[in-house]
């Protein structure tokens, strides 16, 4: 076996939000809007003694994918756990709204959301929640015209209101190291007790919320390896595929019927969840 291959691997997870955005857009096409030098930072964090980041942890990257206009919105997971505050949330919502505007003006523009986020930024409370609601509305608007592609690569994963955003996306892409769920493991453990949900039991957590499981249960559309070229290829393929025939949130009845059929007296394991969802959800 040629071990030197191991040195050539090009991890997508290793990249920060800005590098990820650049790796997805056509080479040389990226320009950043409201970048770090514009210094639009959170007005709330510094009052709470927290060092701000010059882009508030959100990269708005305009450019092209397959030569077509695109905007990549990258959440920086290493800043405040990728949490969405007033400014970062407004940047994302605003960029999505402008993309929808462009579509209406006859400039087809798609969007890619790089989700590494625990959800709302608790320090900014309702302002963050309001921003997330605007993001949801903007996704629902934009996806009529062009695909909105969500990506959860790791290592933070995607939780909270931003996973609702993920569910609204035209397509979801995950890696093996991704976790994608509504409540984070520690929150569930706190609410349900460690007996039911041990947040430190990593194989257990991944067996239920990990990328492989989410793909197997039809809650994600593509499962890619942690590699820049593979990720790039999948995004390109989905961009070309255009608007999907059906969207997850238009199949609510189908999901509710599935949930109703589950026996909640037993805690299902990974395989059982796959079986339950395998019955009807896969598009």
């Amino acid at each position: 076996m040629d071990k030197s291959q191991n040195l050539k691997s090009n991890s997508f997870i290793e990249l920060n939000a800005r590098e990820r955005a650049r790796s997805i857009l056509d080479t040389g096409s990226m320009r950043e809007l409201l970048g770090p030098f514009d210094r639009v930072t959170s007005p709330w964090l510094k009052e709470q003694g927290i060092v701000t980041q010059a882009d508030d942890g959100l990269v708005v990257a305009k450019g092209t994918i397959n030569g077509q206009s695109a905007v990549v919105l990258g959440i920086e997971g290493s800043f405040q756990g990728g949490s969405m505050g007033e400014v970062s949330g407004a940047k994302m919502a605003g960029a999505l709204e402008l993309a929808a505007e462009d579509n209406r003006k006859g400039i087809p523009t798609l969007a890619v959301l790089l989700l590494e986020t625990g959800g709302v930024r608790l320090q900014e409370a309702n302002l963050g929640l309001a921003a997330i609601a605007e993001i949801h509305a903007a996704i629902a608007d934009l996806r009529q015209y062009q695909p909105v592609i969500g990506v959860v690569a790791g290592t933070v994963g995607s939780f909270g209101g931003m996973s609702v955003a993920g569910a609204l996306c035209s397509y979801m892409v995950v890696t093996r190291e991704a976790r994608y769920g509504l409540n984070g493991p520690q929150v569930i453990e706190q609410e349900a007790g460690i007996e039911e949900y041990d947040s430190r039991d990593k194989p257990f957590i991944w067996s239920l919320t990990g990328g492989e499981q989410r793909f197997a249960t039809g809650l994600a559309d593509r499962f890619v390896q942690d590699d820049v070229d593979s990720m790039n290829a999948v995004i390109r393929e989905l961009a070309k595929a255009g608007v999907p025939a059906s969207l997850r949130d238009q199949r609510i009845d189908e999901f509710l019927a599935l949930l109703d059929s589950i026996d909640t007296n037993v805690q299902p394991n990974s395989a059982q969840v796959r079986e339950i969802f395998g019955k009807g959800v896969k598009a």
Partner: protein
Amino acid sequence: MIATKEPSQAPVWDRRRSEKQRRIEKLGKLADGRVIPTNRIVEALETLIAPGDRVVLEGNNQKQADFLSRSLAKVSSAKLHDLHMIMPSVGRSEHLDLFERGIARKLDFSFSGPQSLRIGQLLEDGVLEIGAIHTYIELYSRLFVDLIPNVALVAAYKADRKGNLYTGPSTEDTPAITEAAAFKNGIVIAQVNELVEDESELPRVDIPGSWVDFVVVADKPFFIEPLFTRDPRLIKPVHVLMAMMAIRGIYERHQVQSLNHGLGFNTAAIELLLPTYGEKLGLKGKICKHWTLNPHPTLIPAIESGWVESVHCFGGELGMEEYIRARPDVFFTGSDGSLRSNRAFCQLAGQYAVDMFIGSTLQIDGDGHSSTVTRGRIAGFGGAPNMGHDPHGRRHATPAWLDLLQTDNPLERGKKLVVQMVETYQAGNKPTFVEKLDAIDVAKAAKMPLAPVMIYGDDVTHVLTEEGIAYLYKAQSLDERREMIAAVAGVTPIGMRHDPKKTAEMRTKGLIALPEDLGIQRAEATRSLLAAKSVADLVEWSDGLYNPPAKFRSW
């Protein structure tokens, strides 16, 4: 001749042997041959141990005889008290419950990582008396001199009915501890995960049955912790920078061929830079060939790239079993194929047979003395002082050892490299370089005869920080040595003593080296140089043979 009042008695030369026999006979039918039933271990301990006994309890750095320690903590303190406990590592809460419950009184130990705070408190409360804090080899040595045990409580994976033990990858301290008791009429009791009928069912025999008096099947497998696994994901660019400086400014410069690495992200970064940065410098086959260290998963890429000729281990590391089994040319393995570790021998190897020790610490003072003891915490030494000094009993020469010669005097001897690799500040904004070690006040408060210094300044040959390397072995005077340390101590209290005007002069003289003096651009120090960036990458390098423990998985 001196007249005696009473008629002279025949001298007795076998008190220990007869006492051992007496206790074993008293146990009677409780044991089935050598096998003590699991549910009667407390009773058995009450019979086989006597008040005031010296008891060695196997609590090692990695594996713990925890069924025996939990059982010992349950004995009646009316029956068993004033025990003198001898423990390589005090790592579990029941180790100290023994003292709180009045079962034990005196403690001789080596390392106490997680229990360091509680030892400090019990000492202050007068519940516990410390004989001494040792290095590992020092403690094993005393088992054969003035701390000869009456009872040894050890742990193994498997035993047969004759007491043959399989300790396998986690042999660690068991041979040293068992030997001291077995050959001086002490009683050896081994807890095992599994009992088999016959020797033929054991993978191999690590401890012969004639050394072991009793075995007991534990209620659950012995506790073992993957202490030496570092997730590459957590290695930061500053670790990469320091690792580049180490490879360039120390390993390459002195041609370090044999070495020990401790746990830590700095040395993990060095291991992961060998197949990339080291390869680029053309150093393969010239440095880092022979290792004494635990089987670090981060060493896998270097092994797979052909850097490593041999590794001898103190202990095992969870998840590395199958990988090691498949690489017997590199690791020490038994006839069954699995790893054989041995802490006593590996410590000796690290003391006498390697060119270099590189380690980290919590505090260094202006003279280069270092300690991991901080206020209220009595952490002990472990093995660092054994390896982190220049052994004067060494007589063989290697290129690195000779490279530290400073004069033409035919009677000058070479020197082992002892490298302290530290960031100038620790987490929580605490300076590493301090005016006065906390160890001095801790010693005073605990009435210890010596301040617990991990590595004495005169043993340190190099200090490496993110600022630069101080080549302390070149110092002509204590003042010069202090200036060299201050020059790389950043903005810590010691670093602030440095006169920047002197920097250029010291760089020219080769007393200190900054990254640029070593041809390293700080901006080059990125994670992209790491041969593996995640635990998943390590698994891939190992062809799937490395099986990381659950807590290191992120998939």
